C-alpha cells in the first residue's frame, strides 16, 4: 500500500517537475521572442548631412571608422558618437562595434596614444549632432531610425541594425 502511494507521489512529482520545466521554457521562449521583437522594432541608421556626398558603405567599414581607421575611399573624415540616445548607443556598441562601452573606450584610448589616433567626437544632444553634420559634410553619426525620420537637414545613409 505504502509502496503504491510512494509510486503515485513520485509520478506526481515527476509530472509537476516536467510541467514546471515546460512552464519555465515557455516563459523563456516568450521572453526571447518579445526581446527579439523589441530588437526588430529598434532600427538604427547611419546619418549624414543632407548635402553630404557620403554614400552607403559596409557595416564593417563603419566599425573601422569608429575605431579611428580611415575609410576605404577617403570620403568620410569624421565620426560622431551619439550620446543623446543611450539606447541607440548601446545598440550601436552591440550590433556594430561588438564590444562593451568600457572595451570601446579602452580601445580608442590605446589607439590614440599608441598610433597617433584622434579622439572620436561625442555629442550629447541631437540638435548639436545635426549642427555638427551640417558644418562637416564628410562626417557621419548614428541614431534610431524614428529619430532620423523626425530630424530635418540629415539623410539616412544606411541601416545599421
Amino acid at each position: 500500500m505504502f509502496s503504491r502511494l510512494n509510486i503515485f507521489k513520485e509520478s506526481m512529482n515527476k509530472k509537476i517537475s516536467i510541467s514546471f520545466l515546460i512552464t519555465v521554457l515557455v516563459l523563456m521562449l516568450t521572453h526571447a521572442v518579445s526581446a527579439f521583437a523589441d530588437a526588430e522594432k529598434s532600427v538604427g541608421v547611419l546619418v549624414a548631412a543632407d548635402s553630404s556626398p557620403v554614400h552607403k558603405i559596409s557595416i564593417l567599414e563603419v566599425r573601422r571608422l569608429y575605431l579611428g581607421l580611415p575609410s576605404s575611399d577617403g570620403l568620410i573624415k569624421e565620426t560622431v558618437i551619439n550620446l543623446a540616445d543611450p539606447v541607440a548607443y548601446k545598440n550601436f556598441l552591440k550590433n556594430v562595434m561588438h564590444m562593451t562601452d568600457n572595451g570601446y573606450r579602452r580601445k580608442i584610448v590605446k589607439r590614440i596614444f599608441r598610433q597617433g589616433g584622434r579622439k572620436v567626437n561625442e555629442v550629447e544632444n541631437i540638435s548639436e549632432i545635426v549642427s555638427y553634420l551640417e558644418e562637416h559634410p564628410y562626417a557621419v553619426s548614428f541614431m534610431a531610425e524614428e529619430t532620423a525620420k523626425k530630424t530635418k537637414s540629415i539623410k539616412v545613409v544606411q541601416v545599421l541594425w
Partner: protein
Amino acid sequence: MFKKINILILFIALLSYETISLADINLSGYGSIVAGRVISGDEFLSDYPNAGVYDRDISFSPDTSIGVQLIASLDDSFEFVIQAVSNGATDYDIDLDWAYINYQLNTELTIQAGRKRLPLYYYSDFFNVGYAYYWIRPPADNYTWQISHYNGLSLQYQPYIGEWDVLLNLYAGREDSNDNELLSFLSGVQVDETWKNMVGIVAEVSKDWLEFRATFMQGQLDRSVNGVVTAQNVKQKFSGISVNLYLYEFIILSEYNQYVRDASDIHVDTRMLSLAYQLGAFTPHVTRSALHQKENKFGGDEDHNTISIGLRWDYNKNTAIKVQFDRVQDEGVAIPILEDSDTVSIGVDFVF
C-alpha cells in the same frame, strides 16, 4: 645624437608646410597622479624603466606622469605626431615618447619615421597611459627593460579580415641612453647603454572578446660602465605572446615573454596572469606576475614575483580612480631587486 637629428628632421618637415593651420592640429593627453608607500619591507621598484621607487614615506613621484600629444595634419596622408611626457620618477623632466612623421600609403598601410616607444610587450607602447588598463601600473615584473624607445622606421598594416581587427607592425631602429636610469640606479655608477640594429615584428589580432598578440625583436647591445666598455655588439632577442579574454563582465589577461642574451648566458622568462570582474563602474582585479632568470655560468640570477590586488572605479568617462596592493617576493640571490615588500598605492588616471 640620433634623437636630436630625428627631431630636427621632423621640425624641418613641419616648417616646410607653411599652410598648416590650427584647424589641422589635434591635441589630446593623459595623466596619472599616484601616491603610495611601502608598508612592509624597505623599497618597491614600481617603474623599472624610469627607476621609480617607493619607500616607507608617502611619495607621489614613482608612478605620477602626464603626457600631451599633438598631431598636425600636413595634408590628407601626411601627419606629424609628437607626444611629450613628464614622469615623476625622472624629476618631472620632459621626455619625447613619440616624435614621428606618419605617411599613409593607403587605407591599410602606414609608414612612420622618427622616435617611437619600443613595442616589446603588450603594454610597452602605452605604458604611461594608466587610463587604458585597470592596474595602477602594468605588472612591474614583466616590464623591467632599461630601454623603452627607438629611433627609426616603422611600417603598420591594418587589413580588413571580417570582424577581426588585425595589426602587423614591422620596425627597425636604435636607441642610445647615456646614464641609463635603471642600470645606473641598480649599479650605483654611470652606465651608458645602446641598443642597435633592432629589427622587430608585432602581430595583433582581436575581436570583441579576444585579443592575441605575438612579438619578436632582435638586435645588438653596447654597454659601458663608468666609461669602460663592458659589452659590444652583443646579440639579444625578445619574444612574447599575450592572450586577453573579455567574457561579458569577466576579464582574463595573460602574458608570457622571453629574453635571451646567449653571450652573457642570460635567459629570462616573465609571465603574468590577471583576472578581473566588471561590476558596473567598478573593476576588482587580482594579478600574479613573475620574472625568472636562472642562475648562469657567471653566477647571475634574478627571481621575483608580485601578487597585486586592486580596484578600478570608472568615476566618469574620462577619469578612473584606482587603489592597489602589491606584495613582492624577491628570491634572487646574486641579483636581488630591492627585496620583499608590501606596498599600497592610490591614484587617479585621466584622459583629455
